[in-house]
């Protein structure tokens, strides 16, 4: 049983015009097995929340705490956060030319497990994960994210989620750019990971359609750098009807 606890999180980015405050006190608790949807208009700070938890150097934490089972996440390096059990499925996964998917996955698994996975079982693991996501085996010899279609990038993210077995996963707009078939395949992958590892999920999305496939236990509405409303799955239905107009600021 794991708990990711976010308390009063304040985050700024430094720009040419000085620091701009983006997160203005976020409180959120995610436990193993729970699925939380964070929904909100563009520019509300949803992605900043995701990247701040993962430790992206662009963001400066100016207040608050983030702990995973009591350990101070904000004091950890990026790789240490992954080792502690956090995973971020990115909206725009980064291309790493010349590094094959298979090499990347094995290097990551080795780092996270503390030893190189046995080659034979590892190949089987990767194959199964790729099969489950309807991915061509030739995929593993391509360079990480290079020349991938939008759908391939997202499948690759979810494949990592299944292989690397984190405790808490943050999915940043994993649904964006996916057609209906790809959305279903990717969602099934997330649900498998939930089931297999009692994964806690923080699902960041602009639209409600992914929630048809991944059922949230809690829905949080995000606007202007903090959570403005919370509820159960029914809150998503209300957003589907009414949109974000009532939360709009400025």
């Amino acid at each position: 049983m794991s708990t990711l606890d976010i308390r009063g999180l304040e985050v700024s980015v430094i720009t040419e015009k000085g620091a701009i405050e983006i997160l203005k006190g976020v409180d959120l608790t995610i436990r193993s097995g729970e699925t939380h949807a964070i929904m909100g208009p563009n520019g509300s700070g949803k992605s900043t929340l995701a990247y701040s938890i993962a430790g992206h150097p662009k963001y400066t934490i100016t207040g608050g705490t983030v702990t995973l089972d009591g350990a101070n996440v904000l004091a950890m390096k990026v790789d240490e956060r992954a080792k502690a059990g956090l995973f971020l499925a990115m909206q725009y996964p980064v291309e790493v030319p010349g590094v094959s998917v298979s090499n990347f996955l094995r290097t990551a698994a080795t780092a996270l497990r503390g030893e190189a996975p046995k080659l034979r079982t590892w190949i089987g693991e990767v194959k199964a994960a790729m099969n489950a996501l309807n991915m061509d085996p030739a995929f593993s010899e391509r360079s990480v994210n290079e020349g991938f279609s939008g759908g391939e990038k997202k499948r690759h993210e979810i494949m990592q989620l299944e292989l690397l077995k984190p405790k808490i996963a943050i999915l940043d707009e994993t649904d964006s750019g996916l057609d209906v078939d790809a959305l279903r395949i990717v969602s099934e992958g997330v649900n498998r990971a939930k089931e297999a590892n009692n994964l806690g999920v923080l699902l960041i999305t602009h639209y409600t359609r992914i929630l048809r496939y991944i059922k949230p236990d809690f829905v949080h509405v995000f606007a202007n750098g903090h959570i403005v409303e919370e509820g159960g799955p029914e809150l998503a239905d209300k957003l589907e009807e009414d949109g974000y107009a009532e939360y709009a600021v400025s």
Partner: protein
Amino acid sequence: MSVLTTNYLTPTGREEAWRFTPLNRLAGMHDGTGIISERKSLALKDGSQNGVRVSRVPRELIAPQSYSDDVIVQRIHAESDDVLLVEVASNTHVSDVIHLHRAVGGLDGTELSRVQISIGAHSTAMIIVENRESAILGEDIEILLEPSSNLTFVTLQEWSEESIYAARHHAIIDRDASFKSITVTVGGSLVRILPTVEFSGPGSSADLSGVYFATAGQHLEHRIHIEHGAPKAKSRVNFKGALAGDKAHTVWIGDVFIRATAEGTDTYEVNRNLLLSDGARADSVPNLEIETGEIVGAGHASTTGRFDDEQLFYLMSRGIPMEEARRLVVRGFFSEIISQIHDEAIEERLMTRIDGELAKAGH
């Protein structure tokens, strides 16, 4: 041993061709003060092969097939004792790699080496030159590709730390022939290579790839010159470099000339540099001169940057520690070119060396 004669225009360092080169580290190759040592270092590494002849011939018997305004090349043409000939007969497919290496090393005196490689019409071959010894060496390699021949030419500059290598690798490519070169430069105190190409017949092509990695104090210079004089020829240049450590200096010059006679030319060149520490300097100067508008395409690109934070973040967010992430990114950066050597042992040796250079550099 004899003292180099000095009836040449000695470079001062102000000339365009010499402005980046630390002349005082050339062991007198440029001004004739160096002592010549006839080392005849280049030799066939493995046994002989059908259709391939390797021999040494007195200088007077073999005229240079090209002119160079480079003073060191001129000196080599005038003064080298003999010429190493590597000849592939016509209509021959040489299935095994022709492996050349330095049979002797040494830092006592300057070797002037002249090499001529000829690939007969309709023949295919691959040559790998391994430079792993100590040397003070001026070398001119002329590579003659007869019509419809095909050569892959790999040179590995893995010289010892003190070595000095000033060379021209000059390909003359006849009709419908294709030349592919991979130039790897990681070792040596000062390396200055002129990978140059002239097209002597239409429909010919050249693909020049290279990687270099300079660490503290190394000067690694590549001055490409491609002369498009024949119609419908195609050239591609892709050089990638990394630099780490104080006073690591790389120079990449990409001169491409498209003459009025070279209608239908298709050329593109790119140089990318990765600066891995402070105190290093990468000069990158692409240069394109076009005398005819009737071409297929002509372009160039040059970038010099540091580690991509986004790449490192992505890898680290999967649990990969910083150093390992950097190693992956650098290996990936170079693998595009190194993987084209298609020799696993050499590729792994180079990658391991690159890992080592990166580790030495720290961060």
